[in-house]
């Protein structure tokens, strides 16, 4: 414990240095803007801004990207409460009671409760991240190639199981991503696969152009031409104080949302979205007056808001401790670290303590920055909705192209961005989740290497995957999930996942309909 506190104090030394503090601040501001803007979710925002981090040192880069991630969670709640526009999918539940409170004239209090809930959940879950990641990483140090292989397979299967819609579709997307990851030079034999004469593909298909195309460009393709007109409400500063009763009513939902969100966030899948739905359902179930939900119940706002922020920190646990991203956003962050020559995994905390503890400390700082930034400046942030989308999307397109080209100074990456943009657009139209593609692309080289290394270790015997206990347990759990998830395909029965479904933007949700 003392060691943890010492590490944390050195982390704060780094996080409070002017440069890192500046990047945390910039990340929070940009993230809030990304969250406020409908149609530009945290995924698209991070993908588009990823290239801007290449010139930075790894700590600043990850601090900036994390700031965008949790800033977007805060920003998304603002437009949900004031205008019933969920800036990102996790804020859909916030719209229900948050907007109802606005209609009752309690907009300021709703914003304050959301900010307090987010702050508490954000801060407490960073404590969870700080305490859980190091021992988990230490445990994972015992992993050899078979355990790594089983972990990666299990991660992909859990992601597919937790994804909205059909598991077969999510698995098809993961397989597609893994196949894209097969392009390039095979690290074990040096054979150049699927290159079609393009030497630029030697290092494989880049994660950056793929992520920017799949999330950024497809988002522009889906939302361009959509007129977003919203009446902009701006609460006054003095209206931001919640009543004593509102604070009392939201205390337990914040606590429950924090625990739920952190737990769900650790699991692979869109944890920040699922946790807000689960938290809303739990609060309604526990409430003595469930009929108030949907009509401005502060519990229905406080729970989901806390849950989606706690899930943000939870998602970093497997990424930092195991090198296993639990979703597309941690996968992109992992790619950002890899571009800087840092491989996230069990050795990260030992080999890069400065980065890990600086990052943890910056999350505490970022939460304070967001609290200070969001409440007084809420009127300023909602003004961004006044920028016509007809000017916004060409600018985003130009920035995306600039960023993608800047990675390798290669137009092949611009072509990949355009191609994956079209692919993402069509797949989202057809109700497919695209996050597993990016995850597959990031994990493919590790999955292949650990599979072939395992067989090399066992002289070609597949029994190695059954005789090592951790490997066998992980593969059995994965198999059970696979059978459970694919059951509806064969029985025709409905699945709980049908109720969630892919990104709302693809279905026209998130559209401005105040």
């Amino acid at each position, binding site marked *: 414990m003392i060691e943890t506190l010492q590490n944390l104090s050195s982390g704060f030394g780094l996080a409070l240095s002017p440069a890192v503090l500046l990047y945390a601040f910039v990340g929070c501001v940009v993230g809030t803007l990304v969250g406020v803007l409908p149609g530009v979710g945290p995924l698209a925002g991070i993908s588009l801004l990823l290239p801007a981090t290449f*010139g930075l040192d790894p700590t600043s880069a990850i601090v900036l990207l994390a700031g965008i991630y949790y800033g977007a969670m805060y920003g998304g709640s603002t437009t949900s409460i004031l205008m019933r526009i969920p800036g990102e999918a996790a804020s859909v539940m916030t719209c229900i009671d948050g907007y109802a409170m606005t209609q009752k004239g309690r907009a300021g209090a709703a914003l304050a409760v959301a900010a307090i809930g987010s702050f508490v959940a954000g801060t407490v879950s960073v404590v969870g991240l700080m305490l859980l990641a190091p021992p988990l990483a230490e445990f994972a140090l015992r992993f050899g190639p078979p355990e790594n292989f089983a972990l990666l397979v299990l991660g992909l299967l859990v992601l597919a199981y937790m994804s909205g819609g*059909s598991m*077969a*579709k999510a*698995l*098809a997307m993961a*397989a*597609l991503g*893994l*196949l894209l990851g*097969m392009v390039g030079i*095979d690290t*074990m*034999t040096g*054979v150049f*696969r*699927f290159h079609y004469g393009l030497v630029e593909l030697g290092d494989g298909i880049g994660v950056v152009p793929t992520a920017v195309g799949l999330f950024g*460009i497809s988002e*522009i*393709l*889906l*939302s*361009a*031409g*959509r007129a977003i007109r919203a009446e902009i409400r701006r609460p006054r500063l003095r209206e931001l104080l919640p009543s004593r009763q509102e604070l009392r009513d939201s205390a337990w939902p914040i606590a429950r949302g924090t625990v739920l969100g952190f737990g769900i966030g650790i699991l692979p899948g869109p944890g920040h979205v699922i946790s807000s739905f689960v938290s809303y359902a739990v609060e309604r179930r526990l409430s003595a007056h469930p009929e108030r939900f949907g009509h401005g119940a502060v519990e229905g706002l406080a729970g989901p808001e806390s849950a989606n922020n706690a899930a943000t920190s939870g998602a970093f646990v497997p990424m930092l401790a195991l090198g296993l991203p639990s979703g597309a956003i941690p996968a992109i962050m992992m790619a950002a670290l890899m571009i800087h020559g840092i491989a996230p995994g069990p050795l990260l905390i030992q080999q890069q303590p400065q980065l890990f503890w600086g990052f943890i400390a910056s999350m505490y700082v970022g939460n304070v920055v967001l609290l200070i930034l969001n409440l007084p400046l809420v009127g300023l942030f909602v003004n961004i909705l006044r920028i016509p989308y*007809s000017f916004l*999307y*060409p*600018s985003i*397109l*130009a920035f995306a*192209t*600039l960023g993608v*080209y*800047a990675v390798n*100074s290669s*137009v092949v990456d*611009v*072509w990949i*961005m*355009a191609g994956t*943009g*079209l692919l993402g*657009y069509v*797949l989202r*139209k*057809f*109700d*497919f989740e695209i996050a597993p593609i990016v995850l597959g692309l990031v994990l493919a080289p590790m*999955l*292949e290497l650990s*599979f*072939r290394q395992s*067989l*090399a270790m066992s002289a*070609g*015997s597949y029994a190695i995957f059954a005789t090592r206990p951790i490997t066998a347990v992980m593969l059995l759990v994965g198999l059970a999930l696979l059978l459970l998830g*694919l059951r*509806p*395909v064969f029985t025709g029965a409905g699945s709980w996942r049908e109720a969630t479904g892919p990104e709302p933007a693809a279905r026209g949700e998130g559209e401005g309909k105040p």
Partner: protein
Amino acid sequence: MIRGALTSDRLAGAALAAAAIFVLWESRALPFGTIRDPGAGAVPVLLALALLVCSLAVVVGGAAAQPVAAIPWTEWRHAVAILGACVFMALALERLGYRLTILVTLLALLTLVERKRWVVGAVFAIGFSVGSYFLFNTLLRVPLPLGPFRF
């Protein structure tokens, strides 16, 4: 729902299955190795088979999905224009340079697609291309391509 109608899942599943078969065909040129000692072509083949199985499961379970004809494509004009802009930028970036490429792209999108006045489009396009070049190339030292006359 019309029984046997072409649904989004069935069409997408069939397209993904075709992609898997294409990868299997292309993998012929790669050394497969053996089951006990897989070569560079083994994992792509296994993954293509996995994709094929999943795609067929999507086709089999896709009867209840939305019919393809019911998918709205109201934004298709914008989508074609934006994809056209991406293709133009990929072709022009290293020939015309960053500033000219972005200027032409933004001007075309704003005036031809969004029907903004030429003056408004030109001011925005020039301001953005020159401003972003200054920010990224001059200040942040991100190398961006130059075009004719080193512009």
